């Protein structure tokens, strides 16, 4: 009896954000350790972990934007479409128009900004449901991708490939291969960008006036308004930043795969939402943490790696596992919150 009470108090003492964050981090470490124990070799190498980072840098960036929108009480499912559009536009620009990488970066930022401004205006100033707006945004972006170019193709631009192949070695994590040669562990440029985004957004949300405003608006927009926060502007900015990050994420995705295709980043919005939820961001708004989102992406991709290395037919098993995981976390959230509410009463 006494133990139960103690646990109850401890949970009550934690803020919502910290409680959900703690759950996420524990789940991630349990999963990774489980993978090391049961799957063995592959997961023991540091490079496996870095490969997960390399492959999911774009997802980390978009998921951070998604968390921001979700903290503010909205949602944006257009991120995958925007990423695909960015990759296709950059590919066409680099290959057919002979552009340079700097121009491609500008294009991706421009596309992200354009989507952000339109969607933000519609959501914040015309009070349209964010889901409907971004659903239309998603279909628009996917359709536009096909209009820009139908056939998928690889980019052969030399400058771009040089950037794409740049590897940043991580000292201290290299391994010695069978021939006795030292193989350094490496990450791609995208990972650096992703980590920068995580750090900047974390600081923004924790210490800046604007960042606290996001939480206030998501928690209770009425009282935020009474505190003198410009609710509409905050909402607008959250969508703007999310779409901008989707543009950057799209470029990083493009940097990783090196091709343009209309079917790129299929389901990325889903993965971003799932990672945010797994990372402890509440759909109802006001609760969330960027560090949690980071671990959410890692958990999600670790699961995918486990599924694929277990030899299951990946194409459909990944969908099912992610959906199941999302479902479990959603229910955990709703149960945790219901219990907390009861305890508070």
């Amino acid at each position, binding site marked *: 009896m006494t133990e139960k009470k103690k646990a109850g108090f401890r949970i009550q003492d934690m803020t919502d954000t910290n409680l959900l964050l703690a759950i996420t981090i524990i789940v991630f470490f349990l999963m990774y350790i489980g993978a090391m124990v049961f799957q063995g070799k592959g997961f023991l190498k540091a490079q496996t972990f870095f490969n997960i980072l390399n492959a999911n840098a774009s997802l980390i960036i978009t998921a951070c934007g998604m968390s921001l929108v979700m903290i503010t009480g909205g949602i944006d499912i257009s991120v995958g479409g925007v990423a695909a559009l960015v990759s296709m536009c950059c590919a066409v620009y680099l290959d057919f128009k002979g552009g340079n990488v700097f121009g491609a970066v500008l294009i991706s930022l421009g596309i992200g900004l354009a989507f952000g401004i339109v969607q933000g205006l*519609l959501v914040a100033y015309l*009070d349209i449901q964010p889901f409907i707006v971004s659903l239309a945004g*998603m*279909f628009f972006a996917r359709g*536009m991708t096909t209009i820009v170019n139908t056939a998928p193709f690889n980019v052969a631009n030399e400058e771009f490939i040089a950037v794409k192949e740049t590897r940043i070695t991580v000292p201290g994590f290299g391994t010695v291969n069978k021939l006795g040669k030292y193989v350094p562990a490496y990450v791609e440029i995208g990972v650096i960008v992703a980590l920068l985004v995580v750090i900047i957004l974390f600081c923004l949300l924790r210490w800046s006036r604007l960042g606290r405003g996001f939480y206030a608006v998501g928690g209770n927009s009425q009282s935020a308004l009474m505190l003198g926060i410009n609710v509409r502007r905050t909402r607008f900015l959250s969508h703007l930043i999310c779409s901008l990050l989707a543009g950057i994420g799209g470029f990083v995705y493009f940097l990783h795969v090196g091709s343009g295709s209309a079917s790129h980043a299929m389901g990325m919005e*889903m993965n971003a939402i799932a990672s945010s939820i797994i990372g402890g961001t509440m759909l109802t708004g006001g609760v969330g943490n960027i560090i949690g989102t980071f671990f959410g992406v890692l958990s999600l991709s670790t699961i995918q790696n486990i599924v694929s290395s277990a030899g299951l037919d990946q*194409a*459909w098993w990944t969908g099912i596992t992610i959906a*199941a995981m999302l479902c479990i976390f959603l229910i955990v959230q709703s149960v945790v919150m219901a219990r907390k509410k009861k305890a508070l009463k």
Partner: protein
Amino acid sequence: MSQARKQVKKKFNPAVLFRKQIFIPIAALLLLAIFNLIADPSFYKITLGYNSAGDPVLSGYLMTILDYGSELAILAIGMTLVTAASGGQDISVGAAIAIAGSVILRVLCGTDSRPDHMQAPVIVAFLIACVVAMLFGAFNGALVAYFKIQPMVATLILFTAGRSIAAWINNNELPIISDPSFAVYGGFIPGIPIPTPFFIAMVCVIITMLILKFTNLGLYTQSVGINESSSKLNGLDPAFIKFLSFVLLGLCVAVAGLIKVSRLSSINYSVIAKDIEMDAILAVALGGNSLGGGKFNMTASILGAYVIQFLTTTLYKFNVQSDALPAYKAVVVIVLVVLSTPKAREFMGKIAKSLKGSERSVA
């Protein structure tokens, strides 16, 4: 000048018509119809031909609209209820259709993926698919109603997993049914030149209308959508009404799934009913129903579904690629939604007033 003003007057004066909800889909339909009439009148040509079995078959763009609009109309029925009750939309209908279709094929084919004749009567397969689709609807409904998760996020789960589940039901094989009697549901009944889906849709519509007329379902759904807590105080169970609306949508999905697989006599898990959720939501929006829940008009939604198909067919006729279609539809959605926001209405009201005012001053 005066002529222009008279035209404006005509547009704004029959305010009764303008305020009616069904005005929106009818206006959109007329707009599209006139556009097609001007652009290319051959759009309306209907020819009587004979299909491979020697039965009379009507073909033409209008028949395509009747044919493919019908499955959308069936979905629109369920989607309208879900929208009205929960204030959100179910985005998993496409994936759920894949599941229902997969179940139907699984039952009909039995263990063999290329049977010479069907292993079970179609009605049995259909009923099993109904049960399965309603179970998935119940899953969505439970998440929304009892766990209080936003409808679109709750259905996102099935949206991701649905097609994978559909593939898993048939062990990722692509069963083909060669029996021509199965193709009737998505094709033509021998001797009747009008596509069968139209009749199926009509049956669904009539049943729905009867239910709405003789039960309190419509009233309860609307009251839950308008104000959940006050309908609870009035003795309704809002959670159950929401749950029920998702289960009913599951039933609609099963019917649409039957039509879909019957068309192909097979299934393609990743393509079947792709993007149909967008069309179904669009049909509800075009019917003038608020996407935030509350009051609904079933007739307008059903008409909206056919208008959407009209739009799709028109776009196809102008050689728009099927992959690029969503971009155009997205623009339509945004325009519709923006027009239906209170701010836009206020703005339009102001314009109408100022026009009337200027008229008076002229007079």
